[in-house]
């Protein structure tokens, strides 16, 4: 395996994320589907999605399922989080991604903030 591979995969993933909004849903990578689902359900003002599946490549559950895009870091800023506890915020994210979680998405690391919380003081 070439040492550049995981880097180029990440570049590819971010490219795919950028192309996501234009592509049809059937063609989307999981990263792209996560983006469009979170965007439409949470109306996020900031939405960073990072595919970190390569960090978990040896994970038993990942090897079994054979899925490639399994672990993501997600950072979302949305006014829909206002007045909600962390559990409720994470639930909103999980609810939007229920289909993905059923089809091989294994874990999400979630940072969920309101616009106020990220505003410079």
């Amino acid at each position, binding site marked *: 395996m070439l040492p550049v591979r995981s880097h180029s995969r990440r570049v590819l993933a971010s490219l795919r994320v950028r192309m996501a909004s234009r592509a049809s849903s059937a063609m989307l990578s999981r990263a792209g589907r996560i983006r469009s689902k979170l965007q439409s359900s949470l109306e996020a003002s900031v939405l960073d999605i990072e595919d970190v599946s390569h960090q*978990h490549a040896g994970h038993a559950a990942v090897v079994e399922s054979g899925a490639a895009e399994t672990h993501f870091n997600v950072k979302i800023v949305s006014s829909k989080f206002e007045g909600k506890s*962390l559990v409720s915020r*994470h*639930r909103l994210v999980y609810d939007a991604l*229920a289909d993905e*979680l059923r089809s091989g998405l294994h*874990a*999400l690391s*979630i*940072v969920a903030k309101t616009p106020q919380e990220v505003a410079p003081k």
Partner: protein
Amino acid sequence: MARALSNLLFKGITGSPAGCSNRMVSASFIQRGMTYSTTAPNDPDTHDDFKPMDKFQDTATSLKDVVEQDVKENPVMIYMKGVPEFPQCGFSSLAVRVLKHYNAPLSARNILENAELKSAVKAFSHWPTFPQIFIKGEFIGGSDIIMNMHQSGELKEKLKDIAANQEKSA
């Protein structure tokens, strides 16, 4: 019967806080014992009178009782991948490290050992991933949330009385 068995199961995971790994072993042993007891013999020669009357209709229901009991009786309950001494997932490992920091008694179940328990916990909390942490019966969340609460001081507040009780009884 389900209640009696979940009591038995529950005894398996409590006891002295120091013997955590032993607790895990006995818990999983009893759990396996329970799984066997749910399979009724299907021998056509057995007269109806001798067939077990009181078998579990639905394993998911009885495991839900187990989870309910777990979170009610254990001030800090974590459902995780692996055991606290040997977590088998980075997120579970992080959650255990954070919780251990507070010197509160930690009760754990390894969901990798029992797929049915895993789905029962998911259904109980309506939460799709592991680890899952419950404090004083309240669902707290996963590793992101416990880390957040650790950093904000909320976790210290929540565990204050548990850790204090622990010192008194020690």
